[in-house]
């Protein structure tokens, strides 16, 4: 793999026009990845989802070269019709369209970054891989006091032109003081057997609000890692909602760094898995200052021989007195082969904090099924109603009514 990485990297650099500084950083990132390789279960973070093995078993040899000079056609049919929205369309890791048609142009600044976040590299080799092979990084800056009028939908598309390939994508959002944005990430995969590695960086200024809904519904045989790193200043709010059911394998990782007082992070997620899928959510909420708050509610419905994993860590710095942290994960196992793993973690260095966590798993209650069937519902409908009921409170956490309605329809919950 090492030789392949090096050759593909050279080919990639030769076919792009990065600055010397960028090339230097990319080389460093590549060296870091070469040193560590794909994460395996030996690492605590990856103990339930050995991505090294998963890639080997399901893809085998990966290509790392991705030609960003190809123009990809976009079929407008895939766009959501129900709500007016701004768009970013990414095809095979390349940004093909950025349209902020509903916004005031002078309130948003679009640029490309030639410097990426080096400190992320340290212990996550996939971020190094991303840094070395991702294309130009777009930076979207929302200016002070500006709130997006319409949501932004990021269409993450892959087409049949790529297979057995590693696709890396990275984007930055900077929300200045008092600004806000709502983002829906929507995967649309028409490819298979790729390893897709996405990185989203968010920088939230004072009082800024980020609402981010990440939806992976379309069935596909790709392997995905999706990392969101959120830095939050005073009084800022992040609301993350993850719904995944489509990809064969996906690990969604969210890190919220609550650096300013009264900042808060809400991360809620649903896994709805059948056949032979393996999905993981990992959350790191880092309370780094006084009076910060975090909340996580994760629910999984697991059928057939699928596997759901939730790893949730709440870290409380010695400075972070008056922290309020809450975490709950619940799983509904629909048959014998289904598997749920939860690893809640609290690491607390302050003495005046309120933190709680819990995890529970079980099967559908036979008495409840009997109750519903005695009212004329067949077994399938009765089970569906109970599963919907189980998941509903997670969806109800979505604070934007328009998006809540859209997503409820999209994922088939009433």
């Amino acid at each position, binding site marked *: 793999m090492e030789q392949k990485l090096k050759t593909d990297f050279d080919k990639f650099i030769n076919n792009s026009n990065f600055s010397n500084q960028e090339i230097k950083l990319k080389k460093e990132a590549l060296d870091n990845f070469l040193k560590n390789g794909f994460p395996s279960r030996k690492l605590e973070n990856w103990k339930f989802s050995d991505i090294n093995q998963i890639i080997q078993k399901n893809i085998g040899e990966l290509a790392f070269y991705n030609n960003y000079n190809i123009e990809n056609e976009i079929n407008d049919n895939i766009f959501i019709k129900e709500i007016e929205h701004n768009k970013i369309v990414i095809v095979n890791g390349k940004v093909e369209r950025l349209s902020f048609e509903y916004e005031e142009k002078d309130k948003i600044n679009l640029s490309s970054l030639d410097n990426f976040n080096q400190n992320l590299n340290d212990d996550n080799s996939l971020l190094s891989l991303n840094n070395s092979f991702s294309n130009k990084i777009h930076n979207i800056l929302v200016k002070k006091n500006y709130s997006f009028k319409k949501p932004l939908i990021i269409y993450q598309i892959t087409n049949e032109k790529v297979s057995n390939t590693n696709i890396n994508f990275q984007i930055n959002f900077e929300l200045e003081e008092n600004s806000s944005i709502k983002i829906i990430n929507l995967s649309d995969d028409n490819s298979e057997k790729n390893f897709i590695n996405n990185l989203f960086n968010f920088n939230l200024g004072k009082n800024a609000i980020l609402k981010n809904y990440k939806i992976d519904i379309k069935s596909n045989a790709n392997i995905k890692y999706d990392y969101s790193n959120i830095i939050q200043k005073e009084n800022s709010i992040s609301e993350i909602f993850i719904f995944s059911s489509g990809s064969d394998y996906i690990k969604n990782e969210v890190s919220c760094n609550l650096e300013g007082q009264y900042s808060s992070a809400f991360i809620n997620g649903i896994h709805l898995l059948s056949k032979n899928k393996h999905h993981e959510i990992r959350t790191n909420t880092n309370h780094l200052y006084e009076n910060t708050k975090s909340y996580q509610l994760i629910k999984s419905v697991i059928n057939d021989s699928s596997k759901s994993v939730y790893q949730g860590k709440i870290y409380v710095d010695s400075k972070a007195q008056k922290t309020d942290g809450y975490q709950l994960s619940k799983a509904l196992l629909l048959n014998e082969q289904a598997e749920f793993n939860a690893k809640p973690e609290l690491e607390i260095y302050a003495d005046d904090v309120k933190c709680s966590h819990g995890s529970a798993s079980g099967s559908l*209650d036979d008495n409840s099924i009997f109750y519903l069937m005695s009212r*004329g519902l067949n077994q399938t409908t009765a089970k569906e109603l*109970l599963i919907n009921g189980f998941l509903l409170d997670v969806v109800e956490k979505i604070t934007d009514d328009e998006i809540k309605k859209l997503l409820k329809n999209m994922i088939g919950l009433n």
Partner: protein
Amino acid sequence: MLKINNLNAKIQEKIILSGFNLEIKPGEVHAIMGPNGSGKSTLSNILSGKKGYEVSGEVLYENKNLFDLETEERAHKGIFLAFQYPLEIPGVNTNIFLKTSLNSIRKAKGEKELDALEFLKLVKEKAKELKFDEEKLNRQLNVGFSGGEKKKNEILQMSILDPKLSILDETDSGLDIDALKIVADGVNALRKKNNSFLIITHYQRLLDYIKPDFVHVLMGGKIIKSGGAELAIELEKKRI
């Protein structure tokens, strides 16, 4: 309507009903009384199709073998069980549940399903009759309902579904006298020529408001005594 011949039931090798016989004709109201553990709830569970019992004997419902019917088919054919302990179903809206239930039954009967407006009209009317707080219909099914509200909700479901054979499993327990009257009114309103009732109870007081045609005493898994409404009063006196 319902004919039970020599019904025996076991659960995990424990005999609960043995040699149980009962016949209910259209329009009749039967009350079954008996001490705890005499098999009253088992009887209602078996009639509505709960799994987990080892059963032998014969139960004919409208001259057909009841055991050939799945739980939901029994509901489609007009059997209704008001649960002793109605279940709380988190995340399921009461109105949506009621509508799904009613339309499943209407569909099975070959009747037109009600649309949202028709359904709401019906449910409002019935809720009003039973003095059931309409606002509760928009809540999750039975979640956070008081004991009395849960029981009233059972009767509301019964009156919306309009069953032929209603089995009331200790519907009176935990009800205050006002709630008891409302529940009884609900039952009496459904007491038409062809609707039958099987009322399972500990106490005679519900029977002050719903006058049964027959009273049976269940003990040790079978009926040991049958009589008219006066039997309930007699039993109550003996207990004192």
